[in-house]
């Protein structure tokens, strides 16, 4: 990417390096060979679509997350960063992180973040905080999280793939 020469600095507040990178080359952007539950998120207004696959470890914590997505850089980067940050967490922790993340992308800051004790994880999600300046893009950033939430619901109800 040729940068300041073309005067692209302005565009960096939302599309930070990591967003661009993860948007193009997601690390978790595939359907895993093994998973327990999966759920889909749709943004009918733009056609963005993501399917999230979750596998749990024997203690019930999230072991791996993968996804298949069709969408914009922000929704894919957000899905990928989500997969990074929820891995290893108990479902309840993952949901608390979603709540904090949602507040961050809606408002640009997150008073609950300290309470959530997730400072480190939110630090990694921080590149998406700029979304709050673009309210119409908040749905892009939260799409994968909504799908994760639905997948965790399924697990809680005992549904899911039988292995």
């Amino acid at each position: 990417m040729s940068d300041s020469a073309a005067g692209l600095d302005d565009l960096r507040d939302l599309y930070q390096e990591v967003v661009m990178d993860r948007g193009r080359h997601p690390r978790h952007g595939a359907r895993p060979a093994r998973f327990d539950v999966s759920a889909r998120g749709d943004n009918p207004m733009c056609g963005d679509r993501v399917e999230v696959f979750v596998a749990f470890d024997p203690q019930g914590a999230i072991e791996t997350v993968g996804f298949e997505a069709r969408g914009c850089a922000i929704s894919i980067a957000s899905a990928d960063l989500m997969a990074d940050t929820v891995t290893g967490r108990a479902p309840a922790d993952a949901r608390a992180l979603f709540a904090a993340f949602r507040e961050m992308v809606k408002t640009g800051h997150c008073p609950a973040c300290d309470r959530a004790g997730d400072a480190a994880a939110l630090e990694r999600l921080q590149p998406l905080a700029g979304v709050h300046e673009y309210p119409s893009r908040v749905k892009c950033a939260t799409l994968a999280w909504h799908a994760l939430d639905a997948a965790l619901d399924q697990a809680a109800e005992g549904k899911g793939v039988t292995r």
Partner: protein
Amino acid sequence: MNAETGRPTPDLDLDRIRADFPILAQEVRGKKLVFLDSAASAQKPRAVIDAMVTAMETQYANVHRGLHWMSERTTEAYEATRDKIAVLMNAASREEIVFTHNSTEALNLVAHSYGRGVLRPGQAVVISDMEHHSNIVPWQMLRDAHGIELRVAPITDAGELDMAAFEALFADGRVGLVAITHMSNVLGTLTPAERIVAIAHAHGAKVLFDGSQAIVHRAIDVQALGCDFYAWTGHKLYGPTGIGVLWARRELLEEMPPFLGGGDMISSVTYAKTSWAAVPHKFEAGTPAILEGIGLGAAIDYVQAIGYPAIAAHEAALVEHALARLSAVPGLTIFGRAQQRGGVVSFAMAGAHAHDVATLLDRQGIAVRAGHHCAEPLMRRLGVDSTARASFGLYTTRDEIDALAAGLEKVRSFFA
């Protein structure tokens, strides 16, 4: 010179025109606003703003039934817009002009009152593959409630109506109505209205044009077009939101049952039987969009003062310039290459999602729309989920199109 007609282009005084639109002086995200989303809704000239303010400050009251000065003055101002519209569209009479909420309500009105009241189950309605949802969903609802068949006329790869395939849809004589766009809000295509009418009428079908986009760019003469219904929406023609227009031949309006029931659309009410007011009031239930009607009148005066020949020539030149500039941006696909088209250009950038493109343009102060543009079936026809769309108004400049092209170059190098 106008490339299309070879005649000298009537010049628009763009500086003066832009000064008429207060919002165009705004900055967005620290940059000069470049507003290229007029097809979604146009900006409002000061004349429209002033007309509404003056009405609210000096002569407002409810219309039609008031016996006092304020009501009489408001009624005059509001009803004067009906006359202006009749002139604008060359309607045979002011009674053929029905005020609605927007295009969508106008199209629903026809689907409901003509669809259920006059069309018979088993008849077919023809739409095209490049309709706005507002000209698809009402016919689906009619199909499901009333047993109408829905037929879709295909388009060519250039984004024009496939006229042979269109005509073939009439073969079995069951088509009662053609409901079709006069200009695509995605491809910019202007459909061949006279030919459509000739074919439909030859097969005994009526024609409704969705003119939401077309009337912004071209003079509409409903008697010359020969159509039966014409729907459009005030907010795209530089007027306020909340008001739209349905023109229909008087005899059709007379034949159709009313749509909504309430005040103003009746002649007399008893519990046993209610009789309807004369057209067009039969279709106008409740307190109308009075202030919006007054504002729309000012918008029409504004457009007429500039004149459609100048507007059409200006926009044709802008489209030509935009097609040239955008074609030069590597990796950009432009959708639709119709011969006859208005000021709308849709495109996609290789490797970048339309939403990201729109946001990165917005960051530079450039407003375009991205998404399915309420035309999902057309998106499927084009093989995409969404496009980005730049659309022009009478205030749009070549510089703004250059800014768009430069902005897209930046987006491209950002994604490269």
